[in-house]
């Protein structure tokens, strides 16, 4: 069980890197669409790895099912909100940044 615990920590650690890169993207990318790319994808993968890591450490299958349920909820929520924000931005004629 000790090994499983360490593998879990490793997954959580990698997940943290994704969260950090999502935030960096949010600060660094030039327009709203590219920022949406960074936020949605990096954070969902980060949360996925976090859920995977915590599942390795969980003591009951019910906790694992709950963690996965939370991840799926966040996946649906963030892809839907991402689409809505991008669509409203297009309708408001916010032009995507493009390479000069």
């Amino acid at each position, binding site marked *: 069980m000790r090994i499983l615990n360490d593998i879990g*920590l490793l997954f*959580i*650690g990698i*997940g*943290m890197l994704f*969260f*950090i890169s*999502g*935030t*960096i993207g*949010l*600060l660094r990318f030039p327009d*709203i669409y590219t*920022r*949406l790319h960074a*936020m949605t994808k990096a*954070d*969902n993968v*980060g*949360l996925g790895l*976090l*859920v995977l890591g*915590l599942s390795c*450490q969980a003591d009951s299958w019910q*906790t694992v099912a*709950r*963690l996965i*349920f*939370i991840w799926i*909820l*966040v996946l*649906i*929520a*963030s892809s*839907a*909100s991402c689409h*809505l*924000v991008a669509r*409203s*931005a297009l309708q*408001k004629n*916010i032009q995507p940044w493009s390479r000069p």
Partner: protein
Amino acid sequence: MSFIHIAFALILLLAIAAGLFRILAGPTAADRMMAAQLFGTCGVAIMLLLAEGMESPVLLDIALVFAILAAMATITFVRRAWHSSENVGEMNENT
């Protein structure tokens, strides 16, 4: 208590704090809202880490509520706040 989980939660808190800069900088309302969306995902992640780190499974329920509320907040923002402010602008131009 597992200190490593709490340390990870603190890293995420720093990620949120860095995201606050986007709220200051904007430039559009949606950029600011996206930082709030970051609070949603990172908030869920922090709750999950604390649930394990402080051994209180109740925090899992809070993570669930965060997950649902984050979606509601963004959808409400897009459907009400962002569009209606534009409509008010159009109405003012028309009158």
